[in-house]
């Protein structure tokens, strides 16, 4: 079976599960002919699949929620949740003097319009008692956020931790020492984020393929968690443009900060907890002003997951 697969963004270390599976032929083993393309944003993965150009992809579950609300029965379905924790965060330079959410008032924050972090900020504000009217917001392209923050044009940025952390390093900053990170999960918004999603059509017409896809990705994920050397090799084989050291660091960041959660130890990699998903659907609905709350079952389908023992996740960094 031919599967057209889209990544969430340009090649990144955190894409290792898919690239490894491709590199090592796990997809072929499942009888799948997978072609992987780089993406234009983890939300756009959803549109790309809905538009019919792709069958599966690596994308944001919150974007599925959003689309499922507007077009029930059309949105793709998450079949393997990879990032148990959300990468959404607000980063501020220490010099801006923002220590608590209330300090955002009177400051200017910047971000790309429509990225989940930006869009969910109102919920963040409400949950943490920030007066939205007193926070100025600037729109800008993602690759301008860190430079403009460093220049002092904005006091903080709506970011993905896994991206911004390394952007700051690339901009010769020390992300740990000189910046404050407001991770959304620490402020009452324990959302899920990226995972493997497939189109409705593939799900209904070819469940075999979906199962194979999930098996292959699961196998690769386990391997990635255990051995980053081969992961980096797979990444470089896919795209020799990227900096292997940087992507290894990014992969390690994703493994430890986004994928490795206590919850995963209980339910295994790939699965999620329905109550938490329902809760996050409410958060997303509020942030995006959705007029319908989709059911958790519209969003996630766990029926393709391999047995739990094959999904026990343990990260060893080497």
């Amino acid at each position, binding site marked *: 079976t031919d599967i057209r697969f889209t990544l969430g963004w340009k090649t990144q270390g955190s894409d290792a599960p898919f690239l490894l599976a491709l590199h090592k032929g796990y997809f072929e083993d499942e009888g799948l002919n997978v072609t992987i393309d780089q993406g234009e*944003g983890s*939300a756009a993965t*959803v*549109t790309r699949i*809905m*538009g*019919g150009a792709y069958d599966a992809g690596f994308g944001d579950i919150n974007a599925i929620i*959003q*689309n499922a609300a*507007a*077009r029930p029965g*059309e949105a793709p379905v998450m079949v393997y949740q990879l990032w148990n924790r959300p990468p959404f965060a607000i980063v501020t330079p220490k010099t801006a003097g923002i220590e608590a959410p209330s300090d955002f008032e009177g400051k200017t924050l910047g971000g*790309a*319009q*429509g*990225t989940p972090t930006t*869009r969910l900020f109102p919920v963040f504000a409400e949950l943490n008692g920030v007066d939205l009217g007193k926070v100025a*917001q*600037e*729109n*800008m*392209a993602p*690759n*301008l956020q860190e*430079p*403009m923050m460093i*220049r002092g*044009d904005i006091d903080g940025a709506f970011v993905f931790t896994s991206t911004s952390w390394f952007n700051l390093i690339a901009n010769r900053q020390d992300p740990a020492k000189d910046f404050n990170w407001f991770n959304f999960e620490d402020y009452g918004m324990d959302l899920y984020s990226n995972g493997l999603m497939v189109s409705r059509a593939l799900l209904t017409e070819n469940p075999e393929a979906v199962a194979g896809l999930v098996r292959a990705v699961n196998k690769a994920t386990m391997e990635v968690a255990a051995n980053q050397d081969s992961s980096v090799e797979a990444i470089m084989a896919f795209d020799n443009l990227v900096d292997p050291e940087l992507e290894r660091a990014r992969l390690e960041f994703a493994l430890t900060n986004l994928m490795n959660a206590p919850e995963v130890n209980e339910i295994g990699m790939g699965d999620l907890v329905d109550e938490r998903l329902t809760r996050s659907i409410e958060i997303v609905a509020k942030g*995006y002003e959705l007029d319908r709350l989709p059911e958790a079952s519209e969003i996630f389908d766990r029926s393709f997951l391999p047995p739990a023992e094959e999904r026990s996740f343990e990260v060893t960094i080497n």
Partner: protein
Amino acid sequence: MTDTQRIRFLSTSLIVGFFLAWEVLCILLNVSDLVLPRPSEILVTMWTRFPVLWPHILQTLYSTLVGFSLGVVIGVTLGVLVGTSKIAYAVAYPLLVGFSSIPKVAVVPIFVLWFGSGTTPAVLTAMVICVFPIVVNIATGLATTEPELEDVLKTLGASKTEILWNVGLPRAMPYFFASLKVAITLSFVGAVLSETVASNMGIGNVMMTASSNFQVSLVFAGLIILALMGVALYAVFSLLERRVTGWATRGNDIAVT
């Protein structure tokens, strides 16, 4: 008279037909409105969201027009230089061609870092993007001026500037107006591009927000508004063109008919 009326009628109906075909094809092929919304949907969106869109429209129009005007001034100046001096030709052309081959989307961030976000980078982008077509056409217009026409002034001992003003530039007008049509559309593209990269206002910003919210019909409403603004400005230039370069299209409004 009846002839122009007939043409006007035909063209209007063909343009309307284009949109109808779009509508019908979308329905027949069952195209998802995520991929390509139907014109009727777009129209509805445009109508209902118009009050919200209006200030953005003005903002984009403003940036575009300011940038375009600056671009025309610079373009004509450079075009004259390139068209009249071999050295300028040999130096400026490669640089200009090189610069024009660069996607402006890569340049906008630099503008933003230098001048902050908002109107300034939009104006600048609208400006730089429209210079090249003007330069090329002015320069070509000057270079292809019939020597005989210049001779008329040369025998009178006219200076190069006088020849330029009295022969070169009038002769290059058809070229100039052709380039204006391209330039104004590029200016729109430039301004909008910059707005998508860094701005809180403007159609570009609206489209960016809309597209990240999957409000595809709002994105298309933005596109249609841009298209309409482009056509409106084109119409203005067309009018001007007919007045200024009537001598070149005399008799036959359009060549072979």
